């Protein structure tokens, strides 16, 4: 068999076997190392900083809708609505959604304009853990507004084996 470069990650079963105190012959990494570099509140803050630059974010105008209790993190319906007249002079330029504990802090970036008519977008996302999700909207005057929701996830997404 040809040599293949693979990343060995213990499965949940292997970990449980080790945790149970049974001898396993294969080398098993601790669970903490088995997870890919996860986003943290700090990396989320960095991703938000990338999006807003030096500007400050104020609460309000944005309404982020997520179910507070999520049974299946693989598909979570999300809606972001921004209170804006969506005219040439005053409209939402973009909306970005961030999370704290998925492997990556970015979820989605939407680009809107006066032709959107209404600043409301819906989609379905993945959540790898119970965490805070943040939506930030950039208005045409350069100001940033945000809303956040804390969600509890009972079945997590992204990291499980097939």
């Amino acid at each position, binding site marked *: 068999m040809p040599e293949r470069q693979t990343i060995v990650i*213990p499965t949940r079963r292997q970990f449980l076997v080790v945790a149970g105190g049974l001898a396993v012959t294969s080398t098993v990494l601790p669970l903490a190392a088995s997870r890919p570099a996860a986003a943290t509140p700090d990396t989320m803050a960095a991703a938000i900083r990338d999006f807003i630059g030096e500007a400050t974010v104020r609460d309000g105008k944005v309404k982020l809708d997520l179910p507070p209790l999520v049974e299946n993190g*693989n*598909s979570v319906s999300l809606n972001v609505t921004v209170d804006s007249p969506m005219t040439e002079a005053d409209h939402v330029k973009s909306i970005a959604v961030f999370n704290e504990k998925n492997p*990556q802090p970015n979820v*989605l970036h939407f680009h809107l304009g006066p032709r*959107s008519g209404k*600043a409301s977008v819906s*989609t379905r996302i993945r959540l790898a853990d119970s965490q805070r999700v943040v939506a930030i909207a950039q208005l045409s005057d350069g100001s940033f507004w945000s809303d956040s929701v804390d969600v509890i996830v009972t079945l997590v997404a992204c990291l499980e084996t*097939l």
Partner: protein
Amino acid sequence: MARALVNVPAKAKRGAVIEIKALISHPMETGYRHDESGHVYPRDIINRFVCTYNGVVVFQADLFPAVAANPFLSFFTVATESGVLALSWTGDDGRTQVETANITVE
């Protein structure tokens, strides 16, 4: 090509705000999943979605692995004139799929 569902109203009043819904079948493989033996499935996602209305971009989205499989998007636009809405999805592999829908504005 992947199956795509596009929902655009066939008729609208001039100036009305219409909702557009788009769904495409795609696994949105995150690059973080692995099988029992530890082999990691390489990342393969749709990373960009663009909607044009008679050639003018009215909505764009950058997608990340945190978007669920078979990505669904719903958004709004103003029915300005009769014509064609073109929705395009671009994947990590560089392939783009375009679906079009006609709209009659009265």
